[in-house]
């Protein structure tokens, strides 16, 4: 359905090719979160991998930073319709975390948990194989608290609500359990190229 009188500002073809449907390019780095930025002390920070309620392994900030480092560069896409190109991230891949934990993945589904009690689900297959990391740096600088510092999940091929800020752990679940937004009508998977914003998309 064409909108009477709307012509639009088409971005250049090179930009359009990189924009998933319904997205617009921003050069800012918008901040979206459900509440205040939590105040996190690195002296007590930890990252915990759990199987259900049972801890598999925890890392202190120091131990976490001793793990092998991973880098990723590319475009990110937020369900609030902005995309940002050519971002550069550094952190620890889920492959390296699982290897350090020394156990095979007990299930195929995970819930990421934030210090602000935010949760979001991501299938194991979307976290391993170099597809995701727990990021500590963006653009060569430590993540600021507004952007999820000291550490956030980065799953850049999914809408950015999956990249939980202030991540404190990942929990294996028996089945694919919805997190904060997924229980409020957002899509369980969230592929920007299939425009999976809301349940049923």
């Amino acid at each position, binding site marked *: 359905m064409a909108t009477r009188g709307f012509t639009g500002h088409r971005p250049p073809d090179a930009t359009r090719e990189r924009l998933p449907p319904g997205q617009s390019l921003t050069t*800012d780095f918008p901040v979206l979160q*459900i509440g205040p*930025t939590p105040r996190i002390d690195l002296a007590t920070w930890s990252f915990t991998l759990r199987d259900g309620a049972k801890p598999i392994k925890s890392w202190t900030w120091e131990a976490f930073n001793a793990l092998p480092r991973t880098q990723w560069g590319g475009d990110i896409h937020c369900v609030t*319709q902005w995309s940002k190109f050519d971002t550069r991230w550094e952190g620890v891949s889920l492959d390296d975390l699982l290897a350090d934990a020394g156990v095979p993945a007990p299930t195929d589904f995970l819930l990421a948990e934030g210090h602000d009690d935010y949760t979001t689900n991501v299938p194991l297959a979307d976290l391993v194989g170099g597809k995701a990391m727990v990021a500590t740096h963006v653009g060569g600088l430590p993540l600021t608290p507004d952007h999820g510092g000291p550490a956030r999940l980065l799953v850049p091929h999914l809408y950015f609500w999956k990249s939980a800020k202030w991540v404190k752990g990942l929990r294996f679940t028996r089945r694919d359990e919805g997190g904060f937004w997924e229980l409020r009508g957002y899509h369980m998977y969230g592929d920007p190229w299939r425009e999976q914003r*809301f349940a049923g998309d």
Partner: protein
Amino acid sequence: MTEPNPRPLPWLKASIVDIRPVTARVKAFRLRVDFDRPAIAGQHVDLRLTAPDGYRAQRSYSIASAPSSDGIVELMIEGFGDGEVSGFFDGVAEPGDVIELRGPIGGSFVWRPQDGGPLLLIGGGSGVVPLLAILRHRAIAAPDVPALLLYSVRDAAETILRAELADRARDEPDFSVMLNVTGGTDGRRIDAALIGAALARLGSPRHSYLCGSNAFVGAAADLLLDAGLDPATIRTERFGG
């Protein structure tokens, strides 16, 4: 809410009923649209515009009207001169035009009458819009819930619905407004003293809702944490970079 809502959220056709200026930059658009589910105060909608060749642009706007069954939704759209979508609404849209709309959306920055209060609402600029929906709903459905709106604008002339807010503050015994102007010679940013004054007037809030620019919401949320509020009682919504 504990179970996902598996029902698809369809694109709906919304027709513009009327348009009226609210400030020099902001216009109120009343749209006729039949939501297939009830709205909750604080939610937003996505609007989609389509060019003749199929090119589309999509943006989110907060709902200013209280949830109702009359099929009318009010949005406040700020006209940024060259904005792809806001420019269309500012310069092209007319009553009778049909726009594609998806919603209501959002389950975090929302208030239901049973959530109770006291309610501390802090808005910067057009960030007041979802707070208006909460205030309007409260006045109808839960007028005994104490509420205070701390509303910060650069210039008093940019105050959205100043007359309605003044009327409400006069007529609704449990509601008060504190208007803060940041620009000009007497301008001041929201600070600890202002938050302290708001909390003294309202009492300890059960829920706080903060909406505005990124910098505004970040600063206000930090001030509330400094004042000792429980982070779990503070909800935030931000726009812009």
